[in-house]
């Protein structure tokens, strides 16, 4: 019973819904689903089937934005890294941004870099490089947000997932939960450590701009826009140049879909994208367990009370 149940209708239609935009607010779905799941849990207990539409469904903010990253276009100039560093006032890096030797090892976002570019060898054409930019993917239903015990994460209507350092107490469960290894932590700081991650330049986007990395890219390998439209663009690119792309938009469905979407020439696992992830949002993995909590709270006292009464009864008989 604790096993989390697949509740999405079968078929290709993802939870986030490409066309259909629902108006409900997001907070409601989480809170209500707990209630609904308790009902669902009891329904399972008495053998009824769980209705996929039994609870209100929120399929994401309709106009959320995202970025389409085309790995076949990226030239590995690291301008995005430099722009990100400037836009966010991050500390000066140890090696300058035009230095190519950093590609010798695989890097990841850290407390002083929201984004990094890694180089791979193209498995199709040995000798040619393939670059991949890494940063927070701004999930539709973020694992970090489901993990946070103090709700320090917010999924904004614009698409960014934001972190609030004023609430965080540094448990780092968000980092455990993030399937993309995006959040970094300030392990060097003794008294004010923070989780650090890309903000998809939320301030700039709200003011009508685009993220600094997108603006800096000289070859338009990363494109900012409405997520819905980006998916259409990505589909068109794959359709027009099937020789150039693997037939998959990474991030369209992974863990419920992400704001950042990727096109690649190489299979995604070859460029270190995790490909063992479920298609449903991570929060679904713990929903079943959390829904059993109220059941235990209510049923256990009854069972234990019964056991206690039985013991007392036996003693009285003696």
């Amino acid at each position, binding site marked *: 019973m*604790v*096993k*989390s149940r697949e509740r999405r209708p079968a078929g290709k239609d993802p939870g986030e819904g490409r066309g259909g935009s629902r108006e409900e607010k997001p907070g409601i779905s*989480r809170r209500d689903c707990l209630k609904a799941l308790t009902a669902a849990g009891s329904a399972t207990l008495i053998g009824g089937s769980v209705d996929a539409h039994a609870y209100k469904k929120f399929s994401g903010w309709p106009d959320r934005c995202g970025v389409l990253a085309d790995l076949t276009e990226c030239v590995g100039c690291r301008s995005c890294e430099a722009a990100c560093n400037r836009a966010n006032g991050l500390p000066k890096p140890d090696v300058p941004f035009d230095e190519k030797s950093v590609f010798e090892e695989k890097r*990841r*976002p*850290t407390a002083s870099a929201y984004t990094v570019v890694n180089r791979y060898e193209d498995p199709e054409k040995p000798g040619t490089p393939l670059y991949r930019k890494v940063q927070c993917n701004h999930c539709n239903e973020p*694992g970090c947000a*489901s*993990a*946070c*015990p*103090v*709700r*320090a994460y917010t999924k904004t209507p614009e698409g960014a997932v934001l972190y609030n350092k004023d*609430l*965080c*107490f*540094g*448990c*780092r*469960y968000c*980092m*455990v*939960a993030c*399937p993309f*290894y995006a*959040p*970094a*932590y*300030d*392990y*060097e*700081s*003794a*008294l*004010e*450590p*923070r989780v650090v991650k890309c903000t998809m330049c939320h301030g700039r986007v709200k003011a009508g701009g685009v993220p600094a990395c997108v603006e800096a890219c000289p070859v338009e390998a990363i494109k900012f826009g409405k997520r819905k439209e980006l998916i259409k663009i990505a589909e068109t690119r794959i359709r027009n140049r099937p020789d150039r792309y693997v037939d998959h938009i990474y991030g369209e469905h992974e863990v419920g879909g992400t704001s950042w979407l990727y096109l690649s020439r190489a299979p995604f696992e070859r460029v270190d994208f*995790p490909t*063992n*992830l*479920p298609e449903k949002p*991570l*929060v679904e*993995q*713990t929903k079943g*367990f*959390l829904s*059993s909590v109220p059941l*235990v*709270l209510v049923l*256990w*006292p009854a069972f*234990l009370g019964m*056991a*206690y009464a039985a*013991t007392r009864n*036996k*003693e009285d008989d003696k």
Partner: protein
Amino acid sequence: MREESMAKADTFPARFMDKLLMGMPLSDYVRTLITPFNVVAMGILCVGIPLIVLRFVDGLATITHASNEYPWSILLGWGLFSGVPLSATGYIMATAVYVFGFKKYHPLVRLGVLTGFLGYLFAVIYLLIDIGRPWRIYYPMAVSYGPTSVLFLVAWHVALYLTVQLLEFSPAILEWLHSRRVRKWAVMITIAMTVAGVILSTLHQSALGALFLLAPGKVHPLWYSGFLPVFFFVSSIYAGLVMVIAVSTILSRFMRNSADREFLGSLDTLTVGLGKGACIVMFVYFALKLIGVAHDDNWDLLATPYGYWFLVEIFLFVLVPGFVLTRGVKRDSARMVRIGAFYALAGVILNRLNVSLITFNWAIPGHLHDLIPPVKEVFVVLAIATLHIIIFRWIVNRMPVLREHPDYREHG
């Protein structure tokens, strides 16, 4: 000797000092402290405590192994994920005696509750060293609620359960302080606290497993299972039972003077009884683990290196100790049950380390290279464990834990 000295003290401070020094003059008391164990403990603390201070001066990076990929290091893998199931002693013993009526285990209840209480207290201490801003530890309770988080549940339950266990143990403290009236109140709530303790324990023992449900791509599929909460809960039951055996074994050897005849006299029989309970739960747990593999159809993974490791865990560290316990029970040999109990404990710890550290991030290249914790972190863990033992001993020496206070005999 303790009783005689009570008579000579009259003023409150004098009486209190008398209790702290266990009725000895200060000089005598200090002399009793010079033992080989204390010398070693002192050495460990002299290294470990400055390292803990260092964490609050130079940051977590200076003492732990934790990194952006491995946010939780051995501090939590040991202190929280292994420490909490080993502290299931409190709810297991209290339920057995007060709810299910296994009255003959009464001499072990207080020991169980104390082991549980201190286990949780120290789990929180490991946590306070590990988390970024420990002074915000109450935030999930008062400032901002994250009810979608399993950790939110763990935070609440550990806080509540710590309180419950303190109340459950309070009669012993009050007897020590000779506070007859308050003690009466404390005893009255025993049943309510026991039931509350089982509910809270069921939920947070399983929640520690459920925490990892959020990381399906990271924990190895043989250990990642929708049944993780059930695995963690069921194994906590036998962990609690064998931990009582282990702790009582150590205490009956090294702290004989604090135990009464009833405790020492019944211990062998009770040990075999606990062993019987434990081995049954272990076989159930073993079956559940197999069901877990079958449920996700992971049989093919058993023929991989991680699969061999999985088999080592469930055969060598669950089934075999289960057999040792069974044999001990069949032969009525407390000695063999004790060996089985320590063996089974190792298995519980191995399981928790497997889920939280050893198979966590298994898909990252070079994963196993990062496993051995740095010396500094080992010393921090050792220092906290040493403090744990010292405080445990301090309490057992003074309060009626392994014995009944002559003035407060129970009827059960």
